[in-house]
């Protein structure tokens, strides 16, 4: 009976069911994305709670040291030193109980790849002249493109490769240091540590409220998508999907507005008068001073080594 309703044999059934799969998968993907974000946050908090060198370090000392090393990495001109710094970040990940494979994947997945794409043209002699390392195409004569000269050959140059490697390594070291800080520090402590950079308390309060309630918003959005999916019989049209997404956005905005009123009331009820106050539960121990001193020594050694190499 039901099979009689489907337009089989015309080819339309197949394309319609493919469209259906595509449409359902949009909601499925949104759900997966939402739950992935929640899982990721739990996982990151778990890493921050593990026993490890950086986890034990005072967040303020850690933030200052890693930021200092990040600035140093931006000043270094030799790839060998940058490579040594990268190896140091791997060692730090290891002693902080972070899986090296996971750490490498996390760092290299996006930013250095994008940096690589950006830096790719500079490898070639047509964009940056230099000593050819690998000849790709010998034109035999000078090729011009409008007012630009492309030279007599297309080659990967020694200078281009060194420049690209330097940039990619610099990005990798910087991202590694930032990821180390983010993975080994609870967000709450990381935000509080921003006080050492003289970030005003009100900004820290707003940031921590945003971070706290983003998860509630994600959970509400996830519930809304799940509820919609559980009531869906058959495919919905793209127009209906668009309408649902638009109404979800409206509902979420309304809910967050109501909730922000309630949160403010709850804060006022416990004495908040517009002047945020915070406690410092951080204590600089001997080990924290030792780590800070080590970071300073590494920074000095890196800068000196870089000058010697140059």
């Amino acid at each position, binding site marked *: 009976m039901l099979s009689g309703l489907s337009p089989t044999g015309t080819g339309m059934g197949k394309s319609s069911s493919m469209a259906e799969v595509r449409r359902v998968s949009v909601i499925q993907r949104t759900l997966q994305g939402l739950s992935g974000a929640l899982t990721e946050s*739990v996982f990151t908090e778990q890493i921050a709670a593990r026993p490890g060198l950086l986890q034990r370090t005072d967040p303020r000392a850690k933030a200052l040291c890693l930021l200092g090393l990040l600035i140093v990495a931006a000043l270094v001109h030799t790839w060998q030193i940058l490579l040594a710094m990268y190896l140091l970040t791997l060692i730090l990940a290891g002693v902080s109980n972070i899986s090296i494979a996971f750490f490498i994947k996390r760092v290299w997945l996006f930013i250095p790849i994008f940096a690589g794409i950006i830096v790719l043209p500079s490898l070639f002699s047509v964009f940056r002249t230099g000593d050819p390392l690998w000849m790709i195409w010998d034109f035999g004569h000078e090729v011009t493109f409008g007012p630009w000269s492309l030279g007599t050959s297309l080659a990967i140059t020694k200078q281009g490769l060194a420049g690209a490697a330097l940039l990619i390594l610099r990005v990798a070291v910087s991202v590694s240091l930032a990821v180390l800080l983010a993975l080994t520090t609870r967000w709450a402590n990381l935000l509080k540590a921003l006080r050492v950079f003289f970030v005003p308390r009100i900004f820290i309060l707003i940031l921590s409220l945003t971070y*706290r309630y983003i998860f509630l918003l994600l959970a509400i959005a996830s519930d809304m998508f799940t509820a919609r999916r559980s009531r869906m019989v058959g495919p919905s049209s793209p127009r209906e999907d668009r309408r649902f997404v638009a109404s979800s956005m409206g509902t979420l905005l309304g809910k967050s507005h109501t909730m922000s009123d309630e949160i403010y009331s709850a804060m006022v009820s*416990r*004495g908040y008068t517009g002047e945020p106050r915070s406690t410092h539960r951080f204590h600089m121990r001997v080990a924290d001073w030792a780590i800070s001193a080590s970071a300073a020594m590494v920074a000095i050694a890196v800068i000196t080594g870089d000058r010697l190499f140059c």
Partner: protein
Amino acid sequence: MKNSSDEKSKVFEIDEVSFSYEDADALSAVTFRVDAGERLALLGSNGSGKSTLLKMLDGLIFPTEGNITAFGEELSENALRDDRYSQAFRRRVGFVFQNSDSQLFSPSVWEEIAFGPLHLGLTAKEVEERTAETIHILGLEHLKDRPPFHLSGGEKKKVALASVLAIDPDVLLFDEPTAGLDPKTETFLARLILQLADAGKTIITATQDLRLVEEVAERVIILGEDHRLAGAGSAVEILADKELLLSANLIHDHPHKHGKIEHFHPHSHLKDHHGHEQ
């Protein structure tokens, strides 16, 4: 002499209080008083104005008509603008919100519990001690460094409660405290409310859970669906008044089968056939 002790024992006096949200009435000419050490329940169906009334008792919103007196002084927006009065009032009155997520805004459980004492002018040492003590009393040591969004519903309610108890207020306002809780946490909460009452705290609980009223309240005030005071009396009297509970939409009649006999009787879905009439 009698008058002076009468004034002393009075915590709140609500006099002909009305409140409207734009065009919709939330409360109409409500009058009653709350004495120190009382266990009072505000009973009413959804939308009867219980939460609005609690927010007014906590000085978060203010009557559009009528007056509220707290501890012998008028509770108004102007009065709360005075920092000293506001701080003294906030130290004496604690509010446990229905939705724990609204109340748990800090990045960790420890900071959540420390928020009240910290903002009410306690010294850093006192904040540390008060927070540690509250965490210990409620057995929250294992949660103290966790972010609130990773907690279960029952854990969130306990932390929300701890965040208010850390202030050590004289009066505790509970808005639907058992809503959405598992039976174990519900029992824990009811027991804690009784312990707090034994310690001399004034407890005001807004609820529609008749079982909770029976457990924790000695006096009940009923708000009707017309947002007016529908009745007041001892918990035993009110819970026995089926007509009043029916009119306030707290119990209802529906066909019911017992074996082969089908009949109607007042029934609350929040408890098991309490007040069954054969």
